[in-house]
């Protein structure tokens, strides 16, 4: 078997799997395993495919499946290093989510399980195709299939009105914004003669020279489509609703991966299609960086104010995508000005994409575990769960520290790359330094948000929801899923070199690779070797942390008084635990009050059609009705002439004869000569 067969095989396995789950007459658990099995099999093949490409050459597949239509497209797939990185991500993270779902869906009716796994596998197939497509029609087809499948997944619990509404807003936003992609792709295909990525890229480059205004408009149009999927400000309003409504494994894949498809599109557009290093690039880059920074601030501060666990994690997705878009913007803006920093920013962007996929999926899954056990998402009702769910507590803490960028975990590496690119990029474009400072500050906000979540859920006294939970280990598939993602967070933090090298090799595939410093930069330089030191060495940092922790422990042991656990004294009053607890709702109040404007509910699309439209549309009122009444009046008038008097009829006949004669004489032969 050759590697070129893999793309078709992977998509085929996923679609057949979706079909099998939909029709096989199996019991619940077996159904789940059929679905998960198909997903895991495709994951193995994806790993193989991605590995082959990263260690070898890009793969290009072209099937002669073009439809008999006047559309110049071909069924072309291409897997280069950038696609390969996303494909490997698409292999590992969904595998964990599928495993988790097997446990999470236990006890659900078969019909719900069928719907879940079928749509999930189709979603995976769509995302794989999006990443592999080398032709805009294939891309759009896969893109919309992906949106459709995720729409059905968000609506998995359709009996709740707000879920259906969230799904509607989600599909609507991404579809309307996606029209921008459709428009841009169609226009480029008209210019370039085909929908292929290669032709359209050339067409765009040519268009920048001939009709720059139109070219910029089209870049904007495409960019809007991708930014909406990536939930970047100002097209972020759908995300908390949709990701809050979906079941946990779905939120995990939506936040962890599908949002990244928008980022993938932005990378393809701004790094692989736009001419690199132009003045226009600086403007677009700064625009992206600004939008990224706004998203970052908005998402993280909003997540600080949430009391609904899933929405808290979802809001923070907006913030984390902000980091990604900021770094992408910096990579675009700094191209050709500071090639090495541009490469650093790009590496940070791709690294954060990977990291976010891991820790955000893990955090959503832990939220799912908690809800599975306690039946609630409201963190005000939780507390003290560490005693009942120690493994989940540990992994949540791991995820929280990772997302906040604590060394030596993975989040630190990517954020460090982003900070460096921003701060040193400030030497070339001062605005970036400001963004860098904001990024550093906001990272503490995200730490605060997750510590609140961790503290309110796992520490302290038990809340109403926690009391309902049974103690005991998680179901094995769920634990395996969380463990897989947690391991990823640790490994990605300790061995950053391969990822950075992968990011650089992805950047080498871009047409203007030289402008991004890929020719001279090595992975070590990107990691900080440039500054004269050896760069960031995670193992050394880990050792230092271990030594410090050891010292702290020793000091604590020497000086700590003996601890005595007792109930607090409340001046003699007996109060329930909930009232004396310093709950999550009480945290950060002064800070949140200061930023209250950012916490207002997000704008949601609403239809209000003015009533005059109805009158305009109803032609009966203003045209056909009057015409009919006029006709009616006319006939009544004629009827009145019909009185049965012979003289009257003779007059009418005479008049008619005269009229006919006039007509005949007047137009004699005229009709023929006309």
């Amino acid at each position: 078997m050759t590697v070129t067969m893999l793309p078709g095989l992977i998509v085929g396995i996923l679609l057949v799997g979706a079909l099998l789950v939909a029709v096989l007459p199996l019991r619940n658990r077996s159904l789940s395993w059929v679905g998960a099995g198909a997903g895991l099999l495709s994951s193995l093949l994806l790993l193989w495919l991605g590995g082959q490409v990263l260690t070898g050459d890009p793969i290009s597949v072209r099937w002669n499946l073009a439809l008999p239509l006047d559309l110049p497209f071909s069924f072309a797939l291409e897997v280069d290093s950038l696609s390969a990185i996303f494909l490997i991500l698409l292999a590992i993270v969904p595998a964990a989510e599928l495993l988790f779902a097997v446990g999470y869906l236990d006890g659900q009716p078969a019909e719900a399980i069928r719907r879940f796994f079928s749509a999930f596998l189709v979603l995976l197939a769509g995302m794989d195709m999006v990443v592999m497509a080398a032709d805009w029609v294939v891309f759009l087809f896969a893109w919309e299939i992906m949106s459709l499948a995720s729409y059905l997944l968000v609506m998995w619990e359709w009996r709740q009105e707000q879920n259906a509404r969230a799904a509607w807003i989600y599909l609507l936003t991404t579809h309307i914004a996606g029209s921008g992609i459709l428009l841009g792709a169609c226009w480029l295909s008209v210019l370039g003669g085909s929908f292929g990525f290669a032709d359209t890229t050339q067409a765009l480059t040519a268009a920048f020279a001939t009709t720059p205004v139109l070219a910029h408009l089209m870049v904007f149009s495409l960019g809007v489509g991708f930014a909406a999927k990536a939930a970047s400000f100002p097209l972020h309003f759908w995300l908390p609703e949709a990701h809050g409504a979906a079941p946990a494994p779905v939120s995990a894949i939506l936040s962890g991966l599908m949002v990244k498809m928008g980022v993938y599109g932005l990378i393809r557009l701004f790094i692989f299609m736009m001419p690199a290093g132009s003045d226009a690039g600086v403007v677009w880059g700064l625009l992206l960086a600004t939008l990224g920074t706004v998203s970052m601030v908005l998402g993280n501060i909003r997540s600080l104010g949430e009391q609904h666990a899933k929405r808290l994690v979802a809001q923070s997705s907006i913030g984390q995508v902000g980091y990604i878009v900021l770094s992408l913007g910096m990579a675009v803006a700094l191209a050709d000005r500071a090639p090495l920093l541009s490469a650093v920013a790009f590496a940070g962007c791709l690294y954060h994409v990977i990291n976010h996929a891991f820790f955000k999926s893990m955090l959503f899954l832990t939220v799912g575990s908690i809800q599975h056990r306690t039946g609630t998402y409201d963190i005000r009702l939780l507390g003290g769960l560490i005693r009942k769910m120690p493994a989940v507590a540990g992994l949540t803490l791991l995820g929280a520290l990772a997302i906040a960028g604590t060394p030596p975990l993975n989040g630190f590496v990517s954020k460090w790359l982003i900070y460096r690119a921003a701060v040193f990029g400030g030497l070339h474009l001062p605005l970036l330094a400001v963004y860098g400072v904001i990024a550093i500050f906001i990272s503490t906000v995200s730490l605060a948000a997750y510590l609140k979540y961790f503290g309110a859920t796992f520490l302290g006294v038990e809340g109403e929801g926690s009391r309902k939970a049974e103690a005991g280990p998680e179901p094995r598939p769920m634990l395996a899923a969380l463990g897989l993602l947690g391991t990823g967070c640790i490994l990605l933090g300790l061995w950053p070199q391969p990822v950075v090298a992968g990011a650089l090799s992805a950047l080498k595939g871009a047409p203007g690779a030289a402008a991004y410093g890929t020719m001279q930069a090595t992975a070590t330089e990107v990691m900080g070797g440039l500054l004269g030191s050896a760069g960031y060495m995670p193992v050394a940092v880990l050792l230092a942390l271990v030594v410090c922790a050891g010292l702290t422990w020793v000091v604590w042991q020497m000086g700590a008084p003996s601890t005595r656990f007792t109930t607090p004294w409340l001046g003699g009053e007996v109060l329930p635990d909930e009232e004396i607890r310093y709950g999550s709702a009480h945290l950060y109040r002064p800070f949140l009050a200061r930023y209250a404007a950012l916490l207002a509910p997000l704008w949601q699309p609403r239809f209000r059609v003015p009533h005059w439209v109805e009158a305009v549309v109803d032609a009966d009122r203003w045209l056909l009705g009057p015409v009919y009444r006029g006709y009616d009046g006319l006939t009544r008038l004629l009827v009145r002439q019909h009185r049965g008097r012979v003289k009257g009829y003779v007059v009418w006949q005479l008049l008619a004869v005269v009229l006919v004669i006039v007509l005949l004489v007047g137009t004699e032969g005229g009709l023929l000569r006309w």
Partner: protein
Amino acid sequence: MLLLLLLLLPLAGGLATAMLRGRLADLAATGAMVAAVLLALAVVPWGGQPAAAVGPWSPLPGFAFGLRLDGLGALLALVVTVVGLTITAYSTRYYDVDNREHPTAAGKSRYYFFLLTFVTAMLGIAMSPNFFQLFLFWELTTICSWGLISQYGTREALKSGLKALAVTQFASLFFIGGLLLLYVQTGSFDFGAADRLSGAARAAFVVMLLVAAWGKAAQAPMHTWLPSAMVAPTPASAFLHAAAMVKAGIFLAARCLVSTGVLGGWPALLVTVAALITMYVGLGGYFFADDLKRLLAYSTIANLALMLVGIGLGAMGVAAGLEGGLLHLWSHAFTKTLLFLCVGAISWSAGVRSISRLTGLWQTMPLTAAGFLVGALAISGLPPFGVFWSKLLILRAALAVGGAWGWTTGLLILVESALSLAWFLHVARLVLFGSTSEAASRGADPAPVMQAVLGTLMLLTTVAPYVGMPLIHWITGGVG
């Protein structure tokens, strides 16, 4: 001879059912339609150039009667027979005493008669070799539609039937005018004769034919008969919308483009502008429709306009436009039938088709709900359904025309498409999801035959576009 058989078979079936009662009538009608579908499949010239023909019979100089089936006609013939079959099969149970909305089986033979005669009329339009014969069958469709719309005999139904008759008949007057002009100047009714018209006459001819097509295809401002016609039995509405009547108008425009050269130049612009206006008129109607059928009627108006936009762009010389328009005709036929029959199933079992009174139908009638969702997604142009391709083709054609004009058209199509998706999904959300309302709790998936029809249509909506593409590519002159 097969062509003649195909033409007369539904008519014969209609006459037979008119004399039969009960299950026999059902069987006769369905049998005739099955035979018609098989015949149609047999005579369609799949991608081959020579079209089957029956020699002309010429009673007067210039008047020629005959049958000829080319690619364009074959497309319409397939739509009419296949959709006709699904609707006849569905009607056998729909038009019955256990229909909660119209619990009656009276007048069923009359209904079948008009339905099957309608099929013959549409097949006649598809197979006409000249304008005159096309006109005769054109008038036959008007009569049949009047019969079907006023089927239930209520005051409202009679009024709506008369309205449809009056508006389309008014438009037909222009058809007669155009034909007279053609005959007086060229002495022939052949499609080719239109190209021999002199300048001004040609302009008058085009405009008159377009008015006829607009009236039939319910284009603004002659569109109001279509929403009023919703008093017809739902399967009949489905037939009027998806395959017959309104499609005749589109067919006439497409015929003018494919078989004559009269649409080139400014008429192309006229067709496109009028269609764009109608598209937004149709869209405007969505937001005020509480009746599901009325919503679908406005959606038909907008979609017919999109087909005409495609034809107009095709007339501007971009083949992709015509392909898009024809593919839209083809995909829309199955999708709209599916939507109508789903609404039919809802009103059949729940007795209500008001959007405000229905929620959570997924709970009580999952198959119908799935069908409605598939239809809503398909009509909104999401892949893998056919409308995705037709919209892509039409949009690209608009951009290929280029200039301010092409861009305006392209943007207007995109905006309309997005708003229509928004509203359709909004309605689907209101009606299908959430907790089950009182009216919806009475609902249940309909009788097995109707379920089978819905299932078939769901399949056709997904698969048919890909089957029809070679035929369409061949019509527009691509290598088949």
